[in-house]
């Protein structure tokens, strides 16, 4: 296939003139600093003393090392671990299903041979604009689908995220038409063409959508807050911890029994940072693992495209 022939002198394509090099690398470096400074501030502050943060403001370095905020976050390790488990299961199952369904639609609507493509796209795009709102949705989930307080509501509720369909559709649209012609000559069904021919070619697209999808599931406290009583994902568990600070302050002022108030300082100015780290650390960890595949996904596109 012509697309696979490579130019011998690679440097001809890739070489940057000095001016271009300074501009391009410079721009990315500036942006990386713009991102890294707030991020360092966040990490450093989570390990800082709350009173110093209040007095001096947050800075990208640690001010008087302290683990007070983390002590509150990991107050009940058992509950926390269970929350992580819920989040992992829901995120994995939900994202897998979401990507599968979105890819199938994205593929079909990208093909000009599919006569219903516009109407199908419209069908999905319409739901971005017209959402029924909380009450009708709640009634449906609880009274008609019997999804209240089930794993299914956490997994199925957000499935088929329409913007993901649209992203994937654009990626599928970039697959060279000759491949489809060849598949047709081979007599391949659309299912085979979708999963075995087109999808491997848009690995970068899949990788991107996996990313969006995983984060959507992981960071969603609302579905659980509204629709479950017993399943508490990390996002919800940690949003409840912010409430806990108010109770601590109240208890400390009023000397209520039963609440364990150690010391005099409540880390109210650093807690939010620690919570952010506790929520995102697993994601960042997975992301660094996953990044290898992410990049390989991107690279594979380069070889085959």
């Amino acid at each position, binding site marked *: 296939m012509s697309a696979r022939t490579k130019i011998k002198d690679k440097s001809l394509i890739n070489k940057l003139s000095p001016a271009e090099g300074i501009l391009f690398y410079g721009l990315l470096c500036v942006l990386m600093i713009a991102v890294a400074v707030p991020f360092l501030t966040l990490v450093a502050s989570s390990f800082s003393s709350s009173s110093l943060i209040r007095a001096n403001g947050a800075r990208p370095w640690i001010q008087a090392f302290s683990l007070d905020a983390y002590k509150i976050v990991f107050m009940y390790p058992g509950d926390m671990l269970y929350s992580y488990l819920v989040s992992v299961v829901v995120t994995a199952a939900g994202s897998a299903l979401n990507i599968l369904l979105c890819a199938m639609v994205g593929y079909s609507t990208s093909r000009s041979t599919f006569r219903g493509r516009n109407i199908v796209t419209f069908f999905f795009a319409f739901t971005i604009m017209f959402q029924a709102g909380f009450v009708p949705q*709640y009634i449906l989930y609880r009274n008609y689908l019997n999804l209240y307080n089930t794993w299914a509501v956490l997994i199925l509720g957000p499935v088929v995220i329409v913007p993901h369909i649209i992203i994937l559709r654009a990626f599928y649209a970039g697959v060279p038409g000759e491949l489809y012609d060849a598949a047709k000559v081979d007599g391949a069904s659309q299912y085979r063409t979708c999963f075995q021919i087109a999808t491997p070619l848009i690995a970068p697209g899949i990788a991107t959508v996996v990313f969006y999808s995983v984060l959507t599931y992981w960071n969603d406290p609302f579905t659980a*807050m*509204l629709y479950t009583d017993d399943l508490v994902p990390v996002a919800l568990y940690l949003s409840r911890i912010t409430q806990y600070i108010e109770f601590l302050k109240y208890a400390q*002022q*009023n000397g*209520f029994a039963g609440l364990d108030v150690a010391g005099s300082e409540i880390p109210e100015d650093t807690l939010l940072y620690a919570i952010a780290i506790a929520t995102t650390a697993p994601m960042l960890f997975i992301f660094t693992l996953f990044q290898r595949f992410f990049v390989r996904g991107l690279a594979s596109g380069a070889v085959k495209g």
Partner: protein
Amino acid sequence: MNGFFKKAFCIAFALAAALASAACVPSLGELEERYDDDGKQYELAYYLMYNDSNPPNDLKSVEARLNAALKAKLPDTTVKLTAYTIAEYTAKLSGAIAANVKFDICYTSPEVNPYLTNVQREAFLPLDYLLPTYAPETWAAIPENIWTQARVDGKIYASVNEQIFPRTYCYDARNATLITQFLNAAHPGTTTDTVNELGMDAFAFMEEYMAWLKANDRGAGGKISSIDTESALQNWFGYDNLGTGMSTPGVVDIEDGSYTVVNQYASQDYRNLIDTVYRWKSVGYIEEGVSVFDLTPESNWKPGYRRGNILKLSDPHYFTSYVIGTMNAISSTSKNPARAMKFIELLRTDAEIHNILQFGVEDVHYIKDPENPVRIAEQITGSGYNNAQFGWGLGCEFVSYLTPSQPADLWEQVKKINADTPVSPLVGFNFNVAAVKQKIADCKAVVNEFAPAFASAQFKNKDDKLAEFLSRLNAAGANEVVAEKQKQLDAYLAARGIAKA
């Protein structure tokens, strides 16, 4: 751009005028109120409010213990408990009520799981028959005018919990040691619970204390983040907001006897209050850089709860909203409302049932004081149940066990305050919001825009902003709300034969 929007609004208005029906809020439907108990086995679904940040881990053993205790006390009845935290209670109940989920009992108050809103939604049953029939002790214990306060269009839709009814203005000095030192130095013989007897202006007293802290270089304990102006207007200046909340204009001074409704935000008292906030900020008594998210200082004094850092600054007073501050309602989806009423009665008459829901199971969640059968010695940390701070939501607070720091005669003190405080003639007046519902929402949006910022001196140009605040309030319909309140109040006073001073 603006012209286009104006045109669009005109069209929308014309449509609205053409199609809108006359009434703002439909009148309440005819909900049945006579229910009797069929005596069959019944499971009560109780949405318990859990006053903590996380739901309890060990609700199961509390439920089991409760049902064991019920066997003898309320035969053929089991209770299915579902616990929602205070922060999520409104959202959870809003969903359950919207979906018409079958349940029996829930907590309600003017703010949390809002009472009036839910009555309008026909979510609660009228209790005028059930209360005297199945909860005679509750019916007898709550004074008549407080029941009247709970009425909407003449009917009672929730059972009022008995707790401290009057409100008392206070100041959270944060540091008990420092405030005691100050009192010993400046006002010997006065304790934190008797500051009101000095007869000083509350803000003058606070200022004196903060100046003392500053002069003695002990700034740490004295700074505050803001003045809770809503609480100050009510508990210190004695303005009763007639049940709509302080963020709606229209209040009556409970002491001057003229029963004139005024816009509290246009009053001289409010102006002075803001001046105080700004002066404190400029002198450095108010912390800089705090946002409106910060916890406002403690706003109501109660006996016995404190570690000696809450100053009692005023005498207690009755206010309309706060006598119905916490209630239990029976859902209109209940299949056996009479049984639910009996259970609500048990929360008051049976200390065991009440305290299971408050403290959990003995020796599992708490340890009782061996010396005193009505005091607990210790709540077991991490045991999975601790609803200690919800005594006021469980029928009657006076049957709650005492926690280690509370005085033995705590409930006697509270009862005495309830009994000795003269009841405002306003208690029992129900304001019907129907005619000005939209204007109230508009005013609320304006008040919630400006008032918190004034309370922590966030605006730079105070006088301009106050003028803007008042003109925006007027544009939102403050005067109409005040006039409507006055109209209804006059009718109420006339019906009761209360003369204006």
